[in-house]
């Protein structure tokens, strides 16, 4: 993947420095023009820790000037995410309280639209945006593993191993998505659609990386995981039904039917053996679990609102 097209003064300056390797003057980089400019810049700085860019030198992954820009942007983003968050439920009876918190959260449903009314063109657009996450599905949680106790680490691996196809690359969830994209006539190249990713997609992906790459936010990362899994089975079934209605290829449908079954397991693991166990050991991380959980649901809502308004659905 090449570095994306800039979307404002900050991304313009930072991306030019990344391409040239001349980062010395980034201390005087202009402020971001828009939230999108800031989020795209942050996304590219995080991406250096995943697959990186063909036109950026590998040494720049830990360049102090770039890390300084990243820290500034992620501090601001973390404050935004915290400011959006409602009060967390009482710590008593965590598992049931968590499921209730998720059940009581009311947001717009893209999957319901796909099931009943979306056009093929709309679904293609949705799938192109979802490549930004699904082609590195589950990777953000993997960052957290070395930061956990033995008990919680093993519990996360039990879930992640399933995400990664139980050792079979053909069953790895990101690869199931590759096959579905190819059969649907879409580009499955990693990062191919970054230039059309809207603000909400960038924010969702950046929240995953923010929580995953900062050890102190490990509870938010696992809370994000738990809410993500706990809001997946039923929407995945609706997605599969919509794809079937529109005549999408079997492989794309299978990506979603796999998630109906897998995520019904994963939600139990994420809430009980992962977050529940984490909080039994470190109860002071309770509110951070909910920071992650709320962010997962709120960011999905924001994306859904944007797309449903755009499609006048």
């Amino acid at each position, binding site marked *: 993947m090449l570095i994306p097209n800039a979307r404002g003064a900050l991304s313009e300056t930072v991306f030019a420095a990344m391409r040239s390797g001349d980062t010395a003057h980034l201390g005087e980089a202009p402020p971001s023009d828009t939230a999108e400019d800031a989020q795209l810049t942050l996304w590219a700085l995080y991406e250096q820790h995943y697959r990186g860019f063909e036109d950026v030198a590998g040494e720049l992954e830990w360049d102090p000037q770039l890390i300084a820009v990243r820290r500034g942007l992620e501090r601001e983003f*973390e404050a935004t995410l*915290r400011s959006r968050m409602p009060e*967390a439920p009482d*710590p008593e009876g965590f*598992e*049931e309280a968590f*499921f209730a918190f998720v*059940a009581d959260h009311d947001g717009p449903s893209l999957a319901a639209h796909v099931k009943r009314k979306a056009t093929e063109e709309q679904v293609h657009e949705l799938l192109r945006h979802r490549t930004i996450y699904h082609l590195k599905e589950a990777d953000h949680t993997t960052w957290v593993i070395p*930061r*956990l*106790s*033995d*008990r*919680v680490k*093993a519990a996360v691996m*039990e*879930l992640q*191993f*399933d995400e990664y196809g*139980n050792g079979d690359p053909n069953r790895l969830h990101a690869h199931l998505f590759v096959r579905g994209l190819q059969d649907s006539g879409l580009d499955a190249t990693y990062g191919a659609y970054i230039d059309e990713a809207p603000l909400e997609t960038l924010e969702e992906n950046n929240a995953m990386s923010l929580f995953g790459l900062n*050890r*102190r*936010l*490990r*509870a938010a990362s696992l809370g994000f995981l738990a809410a993500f899994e706990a809001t997946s*089975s*039923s929407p995945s*079934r609706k997605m599969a039904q919509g794809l079937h209605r529109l005549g999408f290829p079997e492989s794309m449908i299978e990506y979603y039917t796999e998630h*109906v*079954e*897998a*995520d*019904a*397991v994963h*939600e*139990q*693991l994420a809430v*009980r*053996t992962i977050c529940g166990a984490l909080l*039994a*050991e*470190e*109860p*002071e*991380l*309770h*509110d*951070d679990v909910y920071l992650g959980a709320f962010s997962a649901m709120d960011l999905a809502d924001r994306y859904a609102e944007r797309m449903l308004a755009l499609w006048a659905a």
Partner: protein
Amino acid sequence: MGGVSHGQGHDAGPGTGGAPGASGAGPDLDRDLDRDLDHPDVILCPGGPMLLRGDHVVHDEDGTEHRTTRPVSAVCRCGSSAIKPWCDGTHKILQARERRRQD
């Protein structure tokens, strides 16, 4: 059991908003000295499925065999899953419906 000290050595309270020191201590390394950590073969989730660890063949009501394919599988206990014998999260929809009915 023994040798585990929960919540010791952490001075940060909940919701400290990422202030310096919050969650900074990392996992309490002593807790890894607990030699026998719970890892049951079967977990009955309250109001949810039965989790099965490892490889099993499940006979459904019709006598059809279903082999597990995951490290952990969730067996439907509410009876309403569309992908029985596996759980598909339908129990949550039933519970929400029941809550609305009671409200």
